[in-house]
């Protein structure tokens, strides 16, 4: 439910009722009843009409709508004074007020029918004279409040929830002097008597409407209009030359008497004499109505944007600030869960809608503006509507009518636009003077208007028409009609002053037009000359011959020639390109090079614009004495008898005639070289009766090998298996069987392979160890150490990749020392720096002691696992991607001798180091262990107070139930546990949807306290409407087991879409971790499929619920 309250306007509200609202309630929601909103939950039946005066909001019900939910809409209580169309309890009987007080005036203007009664009418100084008729009470009360207002004390009104009207100074009606709310950018907080509104503010200040003088045009017309004016005491702004800026605003207020014009002027000056402050706040504090209501003042402090007023001092969070005081002019607020929404019917019966309304969750929007902006309705007429207002500086001179220069020029032409013959007329005229004989110095433009007189001066004579008989002329009416269906209305053209000519194209040919012209000057309002006397002009006639037509298509029988023409010309532009004034084609026959003349004419074919527009070729058969080797030419003739050049000749031949026009043939056998057809209907089409062949029949397509065995069978017959065998000689090298099994030799895939819904690349390949990254080995002994210094023996380097784990490991390293009991350390050092030295980071090491001097013992091994993870800082066990430079060293730590790494003189045990990629990153399993408590097995946390090490789990949860539901919500039992999605008209269930359930208790128990790493949903689609697959629509539900009805309130549908789902195909897709977390508080217990977001067949598909290929959730988590 959302409520919009606007100062001085009726606002609006909307309530959405749940689908399960009882009919008994809905039937009682009568129009013009009242909706009542109260914070918190009470029983409205107990409180009754007492709620009206105390509720947060009361509105009038006047609109009902229905989609998935029932929607009620209405207006605020000021509706009862007159609605937005100024309908209402109109004051039809004049209300005459003479020297009336404010309270008496308001009381007299209340709705005569009693819809609103007087509430608290505060005292306002002054009296009022005026008459109100044909106005709504709102218009009248607005006006009276405006008259009683002063710049310092605006007077307003409001309609209360109990349909009483309060009116008076705004300081009495609203919290103006001591606002209870403050807006400070990026600060919220709350003092004892002042609440900061948290949220996002949009601030603006402008002087677009600034005026320092207002002139009011009151009642009257023309020179009798009464006026009033008010000017600002001072002007704080200067123009470029240092003068006070001057902005005078003209306000029309036709209902204002002379007594009130100055007051209205002062009132309007007050509206516009200051910068305009606008501020909008989107606040997450949904219940702001406790501290601010529409009409209340509010503090705003943002010095950077000019929202500061040195005259206002306010302490805010310990500091004194100087905020500006503005008024709330609009509130848009949602009604959230847990409020009381009641309805009072027109009979006074109370209904509790609280269980049925749909709560909203949006922000509250507070619009704050200048308090003066709330003044309205007193002077909103546009000045231009006032009769006979002389424009300032009006020009009293009027132009004379211009005179055309006659005769006009006219000519016909071939119009590319119309593909027809058209005329153009060229006009010119002389520049006029004013009626007082003065020169026109403020000319603005000319207006030329013209129209057809319906008089057509066609050049009809018998010479033109002699080639036609009456049938060929095709009409007993006007024989050569150019389109002449024209309107009687004038068409007006405008020409800028200084230009004295105009060309009017696209006119009918040989038609008479009437022309008039007048001059218009630039005065405001403009002065126009009278229209000139009419001048008549007949447009030019058609003297243009049609283009040469293309050659005809000719066929002949033994006795006649058949001529077909597609009305194209020879320009190559295609068929049907002859001009639209085409009337007919002359057909001439003769020898190979004959000239078309009267003696060669064998007939005519009617061809006109209908053929051209409808792209209908003309066809006619002419009896001629000789049909073999006859040449045909055609001549195009237009409606005015103009003839084109003859077309190129076309030759006829008898051989081609008789096989034409066979619409049906029945034969026991047809032998043909090439048989061409759009389609062939046959019981079976075979390339051979036996042996290797292809056969098409009602079952499908079969390929047989040389032995007559079926190698490929593609069929739509469900009782016959499909299979494809690919052979190399007599060896089958690849096959696809009816059960979907594919066997082949080698597969090449450009992108990826999905195995049981999992990507080979991203799910399998990336998770495997990649093995050796680097290897170093020496068959020779190392250098000998010197003293106690650390000897650098072997260097090696390798690249590491982000997101991987590695080990560096040496082989058995033999230390050959020359002094017993000396101690040595074998180390591996490493660094990302290019230079690795014996002072680089120590990665790992091991110590050995010489127990048999000058022999190849003892042995030592150095091994070091580490990771490459750029998402965390580098450390001794983590390096970022790049090259890691390492060094194998040996140092004496105790004793006196020297030593080397030995290979037994290149005989055995080489000195070797290998670096292995051991797999992708896995979480650090270490926990810090407290040594102060008894150490116990970390796998038995019950006996140890130490924390159990976090472990990584991968658990699978299979569907336990599934089902399909019709668009009506009803379960479709015939589909059992299949889960259908989308609209398929033949199914008859509308836009289908489905539910899948899991062992939610186990999921909940497993995930308690866990950190989910990822969650995947595997589904198998065994059908889509399109072979290319479809798009799955996924969501969640909270059903414990399969319900009989799908209810939207239990389903959070369309949370994720997955396009490109193959047919058939299993996909395992990653779903939001939040879905699994929601298992913990029982808001999710399973997966919802569909419905489709539209009825597009893209969404029609079927999934497996339970059984083979059943749905599965795979959750990886740490716990």
């Amino acid at each position, binding site marked *: 439910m959302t409520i919009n309250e606007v100062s001085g306007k009726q606002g609006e509200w909307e309530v959405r009722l749940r689908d399960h609202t009882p009919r008994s309630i809905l039937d009682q929601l009568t129009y013009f009843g009242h909706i009542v909103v109260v914070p918190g939950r009470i029983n409205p039946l107990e409180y009754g009409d007492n709620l009206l005066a105390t509720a947060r909001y009361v509105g009038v019900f006047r609109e009902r709508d229905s989609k998935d939910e029932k929607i009620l809409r209405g207006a605020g209580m000021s509706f009862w004074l007159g609605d937005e169309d100024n309908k209402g309890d109109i004051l039809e009987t004049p209300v005459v007020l003479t020297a009336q007080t404010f309270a008496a005036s308001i009381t007299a203007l209340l709705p005569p029918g009693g819809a609103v009664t007087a509430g608290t009418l505060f005292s306002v100084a002054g009296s009022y004279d005026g008459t109100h008729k044909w106005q709504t009470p709102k218009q009248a009360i607005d006006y009276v409040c405006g008259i009683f207002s002063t710049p310092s004390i605006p007077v307003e009104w409001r309609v209360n929830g109990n349909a009483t009207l309060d009116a008076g100074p705004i300081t009495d009606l609203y919290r103006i002097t001591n606002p209870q709310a403050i807006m400070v950018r990026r600060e919220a907080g709350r003092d*004892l008597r002042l609440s900061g509104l948290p949220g996002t503010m949009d601030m603006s200040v402008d002087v677009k409407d600034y005026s320092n003088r207002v002139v009011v045009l009151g009642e009257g017309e023309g020179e009798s209009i009464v006026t009033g004016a008010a000017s600002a005491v001072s002007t704080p702004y200067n123009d470029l030359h240092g003068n006070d800026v001057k902005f005078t605003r003209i306000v029309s207020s036709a209902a204002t008497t002379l007594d009130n014009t100055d007051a209205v002027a002062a009132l309007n000056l007050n509206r516009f004499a200051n910068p305009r402050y606008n501020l909008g706040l989107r606040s997450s504090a949904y219940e702001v109505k406790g501290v601010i209501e529409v009409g209340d003042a509010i503090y705003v402090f943002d010095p950077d944007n000019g929202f500061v007023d040195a005259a206002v001092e306010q302490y805010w*969070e310990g500091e004194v600030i*100087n905020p500006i005081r503005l008024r709330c002019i609009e509130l848009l607020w949602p009604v959230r869960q847990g409020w009381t929404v009641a309805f009072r019917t027109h009979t006074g019966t109370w209904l509790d809608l609280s269980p049925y309304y749909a709560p909203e969750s949006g922000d509250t929007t507070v619009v704050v503006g200048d308090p003066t902006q709330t003044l309205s309705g007193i002077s909103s007429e546009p000045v231009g509507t006032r009769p006979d207002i002389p424009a300032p500086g009006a020009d009293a001179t009027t132009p004379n009518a211009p005179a055309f220069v006659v005769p006009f020029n006219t000519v016909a032409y071939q119009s590319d636009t119309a593909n027809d013959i058209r005329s153009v007329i060229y006009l010119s005229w002389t520049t006029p003077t004013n009626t007082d004989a003065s020169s026109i110095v403020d000319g603005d433009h000319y207006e030329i208007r013209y129209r057809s007189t319906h008089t057509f001066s066609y050049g009809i004579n018998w010479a033109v028409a002699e080639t036609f008989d009456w049938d060929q002329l095709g009409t007993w009416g006007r024989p050569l009609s150019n389109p002449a269906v024209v309107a009687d209305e004038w068409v007006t053209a405008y020409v800028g002053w200084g230009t004295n000519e105009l060309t009017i194209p696209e006119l009918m040919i040989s038609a008479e037009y009437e022309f008039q012209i007048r001059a218009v000057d630039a005065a405001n309002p403009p002065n126009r000359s009278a229209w000139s006397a009419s001048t008549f002009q007949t447009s030019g006639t058609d003297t243009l011959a049609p283009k040469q037509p293309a050659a005809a298509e000719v066929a002949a029988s033994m006795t006649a020639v058949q001529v077909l023409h597609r009305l194209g010309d020879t320009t190559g532009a295609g068929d049907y390109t002859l001009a639209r004034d085409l009337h007919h084609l002359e057909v001439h026959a003769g020898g190979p090079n004959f000239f078309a003349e009267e003696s060669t004419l064998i007939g005519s074919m009617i061809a006109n614009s209908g053929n051209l527009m409808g792209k209908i070729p003309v066809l006619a058969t002419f009896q001629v004495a000789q049909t073999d080797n006859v040449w045909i030419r055609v001549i195009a003739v237009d409606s005015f008898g103009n003839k084109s050049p003859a077309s190129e000749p076309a030759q006829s031949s008898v051989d081609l005639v008789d096989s034409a026009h066979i619409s049906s043939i029945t034969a026991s056998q047809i032998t043909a070289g090439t048989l061409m057809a759009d389609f062939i209907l046959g019981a079976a089409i075979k390339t051979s009766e036996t042996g290797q062949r292809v056969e098409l029949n009602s079952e499908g397509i079969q390929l047989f090998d040389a032995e007559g065995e079926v190698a490929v069978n593609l069929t739509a017959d469900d009782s016959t298996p499909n299979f494809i065998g690919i052979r190399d000689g007599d060896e089958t090298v690849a096959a696809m069987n009816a059960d979907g099994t594919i066997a082949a030799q080698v597969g090449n895939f450009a992108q990826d392979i999905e195995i049981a819904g999992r990507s080979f690349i991203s799910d399998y390949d990336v998770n495997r160890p990649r093995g050796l990254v680097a290897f170093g080995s020496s068959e020779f002994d190392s250098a000998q150490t010197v003293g106690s210094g650390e000897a650098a023996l072997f260097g090696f380097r390798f690249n590491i990749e982000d997101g991987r784990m590695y080990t560096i490991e040496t082989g058995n390293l033999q230390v050959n020392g020359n002094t017993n009991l000396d101690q040595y350390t074998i180390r591996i050092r490493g660094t990302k720096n290019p230079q690795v030295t014996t002072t680089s*980071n120590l990665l790992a090491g091991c110590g050995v002691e010489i127990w048999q001097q000058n022999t190849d013992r003892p042995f030592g091994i150095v091994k070091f696992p580490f990771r490459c993870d750029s998402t*965390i800082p580098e450390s001794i066990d983590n390096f970022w991607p790049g090259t890691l430079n390492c060094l194998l060293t040996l140092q004496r730590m105790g004793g006196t001798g020297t030593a080397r790494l030995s290979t037994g003189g290149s005989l055995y045990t080489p000195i070797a180091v290998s670096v292995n990629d051991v797999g992708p990153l896995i979480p650090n399993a270490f*926990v810090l262990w*407290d040594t102060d408590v008894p150490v116990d097995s970390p796998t038995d946390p019950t006996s140890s107070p130490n924390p159990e090490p976090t472990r990584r789990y991968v658990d699978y949860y299979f569907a336990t139930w599934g089902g399909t539901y019709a668009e009506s919500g009803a379960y479709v039992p015939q589909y059992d546990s299949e889960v259908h999605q989308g609209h398929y008209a033949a199914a008859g269930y509308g836009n289908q949807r489905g539910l899948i359930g899991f062992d939610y208790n186990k999921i909940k128990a497993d995930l308690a306290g866990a950190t989910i790493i990822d969650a995947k949903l595997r589904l198998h689609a065994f059908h889509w409407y399109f072979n290319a697959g479809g798009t799955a629509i996924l969501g969640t539900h909270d059903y414990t087991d399969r319900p009989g009805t799908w209810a939207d309130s239990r389903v959070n549908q369309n949370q994720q879409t997955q396009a490109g789902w193959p047919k058939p195909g299993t996909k395992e897709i990653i779903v939001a971790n939040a879905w699994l977390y929601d298992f913990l508080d029982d808001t999710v217990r399973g997966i919802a499929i569909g419905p489709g977001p539209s009825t597009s067949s893209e969404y029609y598909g079927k999934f497996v619920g339970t059984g083979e290929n059943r749905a599965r959730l795979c959750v990886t988590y740490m716990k």
Partner: protein
Amino acid sequence: MAWGNLTFGRLALGETASVDEARNAATGSRNLKVTGREWSDLTKVFPRSHDGAVARVRRTEEDLLTSLHTFVPILFSQKSDLDGFYFVNDVNITTTEWVGEARFFDWELQLEGLGADNTIDIESKLGAAVRQNNFANTGDIWHAPSIGAYAYATGTTSPSGTVSRTSTDGTVTVYRDVPATADPLWGIAANSYLLGRSRVLVDGFERSGSNIRITPTNWEINNGLVRVTPLTSNGMLSISTWGGTAWESKAWHIARGGTTTSLGNPEAATVIRNDIERCTIRLVKTNTAGRTYVDLTLRRGSRFVEVYVQASVANTLGIYLHTVETATNVIASGYIHAAADDANGNRYIAGTSKTSTYTTNQGFSKASAIFLDAFIGHIHNGAAAATGDAAADLMEQYIGATSEMTAVVTR
């Protein structure tokens, strides 16, 4: 590889080897992404006496999060070429606590470079109006930049003069009679910006955020000149002045319900403002009818703490000394002060902008009031106070203490 130190405003963080730098193609701004990890002290993990270190991590997390949308000076010990002022566009923290063992958090700061200290100025946007008062006091609009500020400019009209005050951070220069419409502009080295700042200490540690966790009995605000701490007995507030080597204190009460009826120990305290130039702590006290707020504000360079008391129900509100000390009554002009120097050579002073009633040798009060504004401080060096530190000067400075917002502007 040794880690460096990153001084992020008032916070000390570990400096990592890498930072990400980028120029925003749309705005041209220079952006910096800095990341790192703060640990509780690992050396104290074994044995487990490491609570203090864990608390440090918690404080740092909270302060870091509250730095969003502020500008801070940042100093790098290893990449000093990046030192300068930055605006904090985004803060991300991932916290891990191994209960009873250790705590650490990975942090990431998205910063917008405002400039090195030689390329920018600090603009102090001052309110134009002085405090409304009943004494026709026109006020002294004063302002104190950070210690080390240079090129202090107020437009074509300069302040009437300065007064130098010795603080724990060094000598603070306070400009007096700043033109009413001026927004002073001044330069400062990034490593000096914090000197002379107002600050809030909780449990002995300086904090840089507001609306942070705070105990009502263990906090402190000071600006190097004045320090305010709570008392649980023999006074409600200890208000001290820096004597050059030590803090010199007096105990005060907030009165409610009688001219010398102490409000008592508050139930809660809240840091509602914690800026470099000003900090405010709000004390909340339950009363038989309703509640009382006491807002304590300390500005950079100020000789006094400003007090604003709000009561939900009208009552007698006032302030008074815990230990009676002979006063000179100038309450007709809005203030009182000690008649003679104390053992440290100072004299207490307290005042208000509104007409109030003198409480002999202790303070003043207002009857049937729902609010009381006041200031409490010291006349440093008593009879030998410097010009600008005398009683009448401080009263004028209270009246002329205007709102201040600070911004970095390109030079």
